[in-house]
């Protein structure tokens, strides 16, 4: 019933656009972009991602932006369908799930709409989209581990706090460190998942402290877990950060996390860039051309000793 209602609505909308739409697009002379994304409340990352999209695809830059936010794949599919019927020029998608998109993307292609994927890949044939702008989680891990090796510690006793097992980010960020454990350059004190949860991360570090085992590195696969870990250190009176006993590493570059870094309470924060809009905009306007279908977003790692307030303003996520 609900679905039927939605279809009806889409139908009516389509009809009204068909009647009035012909001239409208031409009149404004703007590029019409439909963005299907996850809602900003999902995370600090998403919040920044949405803001970035809105900033880049603005009217001043010559765009007419339409957005649809949902955590549910079927709602996203409906929204995409709606954009196609409306007759946008470009469709940008960060899908909730990797499957189920074939039909919609084929329709888009038939309608001559160009599709760009951002942030997340979709399981479809490459021909159905122009390009995908995504993060390379494995590279994020490598960057972080290389930074750690550069610290030239006498000994690496690492507490490795993992994200939700099986997620892209976890697999990528774990891989680099696992290689070091395997090679024997670093000792694994504990390797355990906290499923992105601050409190669980705190518990893991507590358990290590109480077991009396020695450690000097905490490698947390996101900022929140690093925060939890640091809380445990503070309670136990163990120093951390620049000049402290324990090196603290996190990922995502939330603003609050970068501030900790600037205060030198943490040592390293790896970027997971939500800023794909400019890259896509450049592709649309032909300023650059894609060398391959998969475009890796350039991502940095920040060191507490070199971080500046300007970096926080530019790269920090959230408020």
């Amino acid at each position, binding site marked *: 019933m609900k679905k039927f209602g939605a279809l009806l609505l889409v139908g009516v909308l389509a009809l009204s656009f068909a009647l009035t739409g012909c001239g409208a697009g031409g009149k404004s002379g703007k590029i019409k972009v439909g963005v299907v994304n996850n809602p900003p409340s999902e995370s600090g990352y998403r919040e920044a991602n949405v803001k970035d999209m809105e900033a880049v695809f603005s009217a001043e830059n010559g765009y007419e932006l339409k957005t649809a936010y949902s955590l549910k794949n079927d709602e996203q599919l409906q929204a995409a369908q709606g954009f196609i019927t409306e007759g946008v020029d470009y469709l940008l998608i960060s899908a909730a799930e990797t499957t189920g998109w074939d039909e919609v993307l084929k329709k888009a292609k038939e309608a001559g709409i160009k599709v760009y994927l951002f942030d997340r890949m979709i399981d479809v044939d490459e021909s159905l989209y122009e390009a995908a702008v995504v993060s390379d989680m494995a590279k994020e891990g490598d960057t972080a581990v290389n930074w750690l090796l550069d610290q030239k510690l006498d000994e690496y006793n690492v507490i490795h706090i993992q994200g939700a097992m099986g997620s892209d980010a976890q697999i990528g960020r774990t891989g680099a460190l696992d290689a070091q454990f395997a090679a024997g350059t670093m000792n694994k004190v504990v390797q355990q998942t906290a499923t992105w949860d601050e409190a669980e991360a705190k*518990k893991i570090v507590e358990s290590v402290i109480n*077991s009396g085992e020695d450690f000097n590195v905490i490698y947390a696969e996101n900022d929140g877990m690093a925060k939890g870990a640091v809380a445990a250190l*503070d309670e136990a009176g163990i120093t951390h950060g620049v000049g402290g006993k324990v090196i603290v590493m996190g990922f995502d570059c939330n603003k609050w996390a970068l501030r900790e870094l600037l205060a030198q309470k943490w040592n390293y924060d790896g970027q997971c860039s939500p800023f794909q809009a400019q890259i896509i905009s450049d592709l649309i306007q032909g300023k650059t051309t894609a060398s391959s279908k998969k475009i890796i977003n350039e991502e940095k790692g920040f060191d507490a000793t070199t971080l500046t307030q300007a970096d926080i303003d530019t790269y920090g996520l959230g408020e």
Partner: protein
Amino acid sequence: MKNNFKRFFSSGLGQLTIPIISICLLIIFNLIRDPSFFSISIAHNNDGNMVLAGNLISIINGASELAILAMGMTLVTAACGGQDISVGAAAAIAGSVFVKIIKMCMFDFNSDIKAGYIILAFLAACVVAMLFGAFNGTLVAVFKIQPMIATLILFTCGRSIAYWINGGATPTVSSPIITAIGGFIPGVPIPTPVIIVVVMAVLFKLLFHFTSLELFTQSVGINGNAARLNGINSTFIKLLSFIILGICVAVAGTIGVSRLGLINHETLLIDIEMDTILAVAIGGNSLGGGKFKIGGSILGAYVIQMLTITLYAMKVSSTDVKAYKAVVIILLVVIGSPVVKKYFGRMVSKAKANRSEKKAKGAVE
């Protein structure tokens, strides 16, 4: 002396038997395993504060939220003969309100976090938690719904409400004052949550000293009919117990938020309701209501945390701890069960009888 011992096992005085024996067992176990378990050292943390560190500190510090919730839960249990399983969810709401109010103040006055905001936010969290407590209490006291069923409602939807308050995000608050609440006050080497537990315990003690709440609550819990015929308003007493638990929830939620400097409504004090009920039970309080000892519940909370830390010290990972904990807790509860207590009582008196018989024989010979 022997008589005392027997009585200690058999009844009356024995309310604190289980928690005290449990703590003794854990202490002995750790002494044998590794005496350094008990070492306390002085360390300097990142803020340059001199702080006490060691497993014992971890125990009393880590059990703080649990101990505070157990105090309120004891009262609810005593009055209503049932438990509130929504304390974790309610704490998530209280914590969310706490953070939300601070954020609103910062936004409205465009300034950093000030002590005034935090006090205001804490009071707001208290009011909200008390309202939710009153909601639970009304269902239990007025509509006579079983406490576990009544609080199941908030247990189910509480974290969703917190989700709305937070707009789905996990906002952070960072300020030296928040750090002081969740960690250490500069110059004081004792963790602040421990101090808050002491304050709460003293408040409860004062409450029982300056009001007859203890007598009324126990009367309502033991024999509601008789209490009513003696003029006690049992509806009010039950409602009040839930409202007092609400305050405990707000305090625990605030500590929880302050420890991490952020509110994660999904995981703040998760699964704590069961530990809280367990603390009340280990404290020797009847879960069917009636006579209670708040001190027992506090000890119960420390037993649970001591168990956790002991397991950590034995290099059990934080995920596996739950399973080991369950085994030990089953043992504790069985040891504290009337059947085993009676058996011990009989053993003791038998041993006594044997000895006196031998003595008598000796005298004859």
